[in-house]
């Protein structure tokens, strides 16, 4: 198998990172984990900035690090690209020169390097920024250029280290779309480190959950997030998730229910995602409005910070996917509605609060 194959062991004061990571060629794998779980250490080892105590890293069957034989290629010769939280564009160069930096550094002539740079800038939708200096770019624009720069160096493996964490909320979905499109179009092998399950859902075929330096979960993105087996995954995945097929009006569940939202990818596997805080609960059928209303029964009430999380279950004979949906209510609201396990309820969520994402190919299975 080509792609990334890494076995890494690094002893630290507080924990030992001991993981085996395989990423098939062209596959995108997300690494989720709490702070201090070893995500950054793993990236540093792969990028060649940190030598593991024991380990072997190969990309496309090329050995980058092997402690047994003493191989340790420096960062410049590994062909491992990095897109970090900060764009880190070279401030003295234009966007075009930033993107052309990689090809130039590896020996391309100026004209050829500029050509390659223009291609990648167009690819990420940043062609019009070519002549701007980084100081004249917004966060989202700069991150596009940084993505183009990383890709222009033709890395065998692309590391994405919380690439949207520093962006404002408006810029994140757009850039996430750009990354998704470009990764799909180029078939790049990539490892994505993130806190945000939406990143994983939108971009990754597979998810690894890292806790205390070990891989505790590994599987198709949606399977891991919808059936959390650790406290961390449950918290990270503290989202309502409905799978189905994309529809111009949102998402169509297997039983035919429409979850109204912004348009999903028509006819393709997709997931609708919304936060428990955006779900309202009524004991009588809700007022007609552009809302999604799902009949359910209360399965459990769990204290959750200063709110109460209402876990729903399917009504007898109703669609099964309702089971597991959650709503966050204030204790006062729970008291007013006299909710208790078994109470029939109607869950309501505004179409605007629902995001529909294409499901990664593996995640659809």
């Amino acid at each position: 198998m080509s792609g990334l194959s890494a076995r890494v062991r690094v002893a630290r004061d507080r924990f030992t990172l001991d993981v085996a990571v395989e990423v098939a060629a062209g596959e995108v794998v997300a690494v989720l984990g709490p702070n201090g779980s070893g995500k950054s250490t793993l990236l540093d080892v792969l990028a060649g900035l940190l030598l593991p105590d024991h380990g072997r890293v190969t990309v496309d069957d090329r050995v980058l690090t092997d402690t047994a034989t003493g191989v340790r290629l420096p960062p410049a010769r590994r062909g491992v690209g990095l897109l970090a939280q900060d764009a880190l564009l070279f401030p003295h160069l234009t966007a075009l020169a930033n993107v052309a930096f990689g090809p130039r550094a590896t020996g391309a002539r100026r004209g050829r390097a500029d050509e390659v740079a223009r291609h990648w800038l167009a690819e990420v939708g940043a062609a019009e920024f070519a002549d701007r200096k980084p100081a004249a770019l917004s966060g989202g624009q700069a991150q596009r250029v940084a993505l183009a720069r990383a890709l222009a160096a033709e890395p065998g493996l692309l590391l994405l280290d919380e690439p949207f964490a520093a962006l404002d909320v408006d810029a994140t979905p757009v850039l996430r779309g750009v990354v998704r499109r470009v990764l799909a179009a180029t078939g790049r092998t990539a490892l994505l480190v993130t806190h945000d399950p939406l990143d994983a859902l939108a971009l990754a075929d597979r998810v690894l959950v890292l806790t205390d330096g070990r891989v505790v979960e590994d599987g198709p993105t949606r399977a891991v997030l919808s059936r959390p087996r650790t406290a961390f995954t449950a918290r990270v995945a503290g989202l309502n998730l409905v799978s189905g097929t994309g529809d111009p009006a949102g998402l169509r569940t297997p039983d035919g229910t429409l979850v109204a939202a912004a348009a999903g990818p028509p006819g393709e596997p997709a997931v609708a995602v919304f936060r428990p805080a955006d779900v309202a609960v009524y004991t009588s059928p809700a007022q007609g409005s552009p809302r999604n209303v799902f009949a359910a029964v209360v399965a459990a009430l769990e204290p959750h910070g200063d709110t109460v999380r209402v876990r729903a279950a399917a009504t007898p004979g109703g669609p099964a996917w309702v089971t597991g949906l959650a709503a966050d209510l204030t204790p006062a609201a729970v008291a007013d509605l006299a909710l208790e396990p078994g109470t029939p309820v109607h869950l309501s969520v505004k179409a605007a609060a629902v995001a529909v994402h294409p499901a990664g190919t593996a995640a659809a299975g």
Partner: protein
Amino acid sequence: MSTRDRRVRTGLPVLLWVPAAVALALVVLPVVGLVARSDLSSLPARISSPGAVAALGLSLRTAALSTVLCLLLGGPLAVVLARSRVPGVRVLRAVVLLPLVLPPVVGGLALLYLLGRGGLLGSHLPGVRIPYTTAAVVIAQVFVAMPFLVVGLEGALRTAGERYEAVAATLGARPWTVFRRVTVPLVLPALGSGLVLSFARALGEFGATITFAGSLEGVTRTLPLQVYLLAETDVDGAVALSLLLVVVAVAVIAVARPRALRGQR
């Protein structure tokens, strides 16, 4: 323990204006005094006297050469101090400051006992005479001026950090390419102002020069030495040359400083 009295003061305290004004006066008034004392009618003649012209030429030549040496030697030193992870590097950082805190006369004596005929190094260089030559002037100037470049540049390198360099490496750039295309451009403004400061310091150098290089007309007698010499005998001449030094210093800053600042953004 209250944070109240800290939080109230967001404006500029009026009290600071008084010492600030005194400080400014201390810098500006002496120059004004110099101009007031000078005899403008005889100024052209005094400045174009053979002794003055020789001293000015020597000063400009040696200061320029010293600045180049500061760049060629001090630049790499700054990079090593900022980037190297050798254990003793913190001590070295302090040692580099030595010429800044040492009285220049002491520096000149130290150079004399290192490179003089019987000196530590000088005694091993038969047939090479360094003290009381133009070379000695340059060495003395580099000695006093280099810390200005090293300290400023090293600070800029540490502020810039290594993150851009790490990114450049992941793009396939070898260390020399990273240095040339990322490290140097990032610290160009600091390099510019460091060079200006070094040049100005070399131009004004007196104590180490007179101790280590003496005061031989046309060979080691730079403009500051000429001023000192004339102050004993020909006060008007000394004032005229002092004004010349002021003009040259202001010109250097006016020409080079904006360029250094412009690069910052």
